[in-house]
């Protein structure tokens, strides 16, 4: 081992350990982000969990069929149910004063005409009415309508099977309203090796904020680098004969190790701390090859992050410049790369834009391993892009230094 490289590594490690703000940015900030964002987005990632919007039903029919509909709706709906208003006027008033969001009105004779197509009995069709708070998101209005239609379809099917059974002497089952029809939908995430449940919020958020945190090595890297430049230490090292690429190598390994420690800490936060706040625990892939794949993504993200940090440090003349270029650059990469806002909820154009963010390449890599359990070949595009980015950033950093020296002379 070269004593010069060893000395550079040791110096960098001590300097980093004494940079309290840098450590805070690297370890505490992402921990808080993971906790807050995992809890905030907990339900957004899990279809079928309850939505914090309530509805009530005014049943003007009071027939077994209308009651079956109410029952089915309460069993299947993701919306919370609240006690019904006394009448239509009270319902409208409750919605006007934001006490109620959705009120479903079941008309009289609903049960009698359940199996009668509209107008075939000579009477005008009587539709169910849905009173809606106009401030409610259209997607949620539509979701509730669909759930009502689904419940209605099930009630009709129950009624039909009961009547048909009686007619043809087939066996019928009492309390059909309690039973699920076999064609109800169950969601499954498709993975490489097995089919399992969809990812939870923690499985999306831990890798996302880990990548974000890794890129924040830009703060300590550039703060040490700028001190070296301003104090004349870089010049002294050059006079000693330490080449610039060795100085960069001296920074690469300590910060790579820091990134891996961040990865370990964030995984532990996801596995043990997040569940304490009532969310699901992070699950890492169980097999060794998948764990190695996970680590290879983590290593590639780290190389890209440290190389980017070295590029920013080479560009910036003051620590203020480094904070602005590095910090804002990271936030932009995070914003367009699906860190802050998950990529799948972005419009198509933004999803295309996300493809240009190194953070998105890292996140894609983690998702391939954690969610789809893909093999190494599936990872190669993400890893390739990250490593190419790292190489490019390092080359530009070295070129910038050469140009600065040439300008000095």
């Amino acid at each position, binding site marked *: 081992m070269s*004593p*010069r490289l*060893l*000395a*550079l590594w*040791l*110096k960098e490690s*001590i*300097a980093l350990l*004494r*940079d309290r703000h840098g450590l805070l940015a690297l370890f505490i900030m992402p921990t808080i982000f993971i906790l807050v964002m995992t809890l905030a987005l907990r339900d957004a990632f899990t279809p079928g969990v309850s939505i914090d919007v309530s509805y009530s039903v005014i049943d003007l029919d009071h027939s077994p069929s209308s009651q079956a509909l109410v029952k089915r709706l309460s069993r299947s709906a993701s919306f919370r149910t609240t006690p019904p208003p006394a009448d239509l006027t009270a319902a409208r008033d409750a919605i006007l004063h934001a006490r109620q969001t959705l009120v479903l009105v079941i008309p009289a004779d609903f049960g009698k005409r359940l199996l009668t197509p509209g107008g075939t009995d000579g009477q005008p069709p009587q539709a169910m009415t849905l009173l809606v708070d106009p401030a409610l998101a259209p997607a949620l209005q539509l979701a509730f309508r669909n759930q009502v239609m689904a419940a209605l379809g099930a009630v009709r099917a129950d009624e039909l099977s009961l009547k048909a059974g009686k007619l043809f002497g087939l066996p019928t089952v009492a309390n059909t309203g309690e039973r699920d029809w076999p064609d109800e939908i169950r969601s499954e995430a498709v993975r490489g090796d097995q089919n399992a449940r969809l990812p939870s919020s923690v499985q999306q958020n831990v890798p996302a904020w880990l990548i974000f945190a890794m890129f924040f090595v830009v703060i300590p890297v550039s703060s040490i680098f700028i*001190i*070296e430049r301003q*104090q*004349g*230490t870089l*010049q*002294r*090292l*050059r*006079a*000693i*004969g*330490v080449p610039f690429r060795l100085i960069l190598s001296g920074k690469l390994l300590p910060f790579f190790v820091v990134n891996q420690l961040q990865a370990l800490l964030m995984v532990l936060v996801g596995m043990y701390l997040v569940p304490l706040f009532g969310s699901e625990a992070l699950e890492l892939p169980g097999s060794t090859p998948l764990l190695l794949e996970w680590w290879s993504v983590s290593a590639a993200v780290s190389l890209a992050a440290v190389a980017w940090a070295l590029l920013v440090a080479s560009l910036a003349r003051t620590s203020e410049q480094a904070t602005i270029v590095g910090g804002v650059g990271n936030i932009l990469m995070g914003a367009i790369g699906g860190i802050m806002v998950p990529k799948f909820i972005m419009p198509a154009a933004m999803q295309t834009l996300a493809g240009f963010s190194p953070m998105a390449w890292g996140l894609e890599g983690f998702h391939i391993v954690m969610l789809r359990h893909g093999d190494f070949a599936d990872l190669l595009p993400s890893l390739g892009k990250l490593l190419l980015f790292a190489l490019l950033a390092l080359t530009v950093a070295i070129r910038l230094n050469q140009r600065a020296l*040439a*300008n*000095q*002379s």
Partner: protein
Amino acid sequence: MLHIDGVAYRYRDAATPALQGVSLQVPAGGVYGLLGPNGAGKTTLISLLAGLLTTREGEIRLDGQTLSAVRAAEPRAIALVPQDYAFYPMLSVGENLRFFGGALGLNGSLLKTQIDSAITFTRLEQVVAKRAEQLSGGLRRRLNLAIGLLGQPRLLLLDEPTVGVDPQSRHFLLDSIAALPAAGTTVIYTSHYMEEVEAICPRVAIIDQGKVLIEGALSDILQTPEPRLDIALDRAMPDDIARQHGAVGEGENRYRLDLASASALPRLLDQLAAAGCGVRQLNLGQHNLEQVFMRLTRRSLRD
């Protein structure tokens, strides 16, 4: 022996060269003073010697070898102590020395020996564990020097090593630097403090606008062949005496006179006594360095 022969250097896009035709002979085992006003070319020359810039015209040889050959054969032969505190403020004195020792390629017992020796030489024993950012100006200068000594260089380049320190630290640093040639180190010392250079440099060069104005032994430079007299009086010199001896006022009743010969001095003193002028200070045929410096570089401000 450091041999600088006809060195010229022009920075990219600069209108005038930073150095032109600089030739100096720096004998081995001494402290060589390099003087000049701001922008004279001192830092450029030091940068060329330190390997931070590359010589494009002229030649620099240390003991007969080009500097690049010296560095290739003996990477620690030349050391620079820059004017900046070029070390890590967040590291302790000991950690800084270990780092720069390692960066010089030292390890094991040699590293330890060199660190101990540098600490002892600069008397940093009491602050080895203290962080550099907590040191006083004087201790920082000593640490800066100690780092320069780690490689036991043959040629040590000191760029204004006493800026911003108290008189006690300055004297300690000067004594330490003056003792370096005894250990086989040749020192090139740049400073704006003329009395420091007079105190520790047996040979000096004064450069300005990229050219060597004078070079040689300090005693020769301070010696003037003509009987030049510097005199300070307790009152203004009467006009007739001043006219007769060609006295030039230098303010505060100080005068410079170019006497026709040394024998003219007793007559002048008699005339002054007769006019009731008391003599406070008198210097014949010997200048101090500041006077030589100011005479050679003119008095105009440089920045």
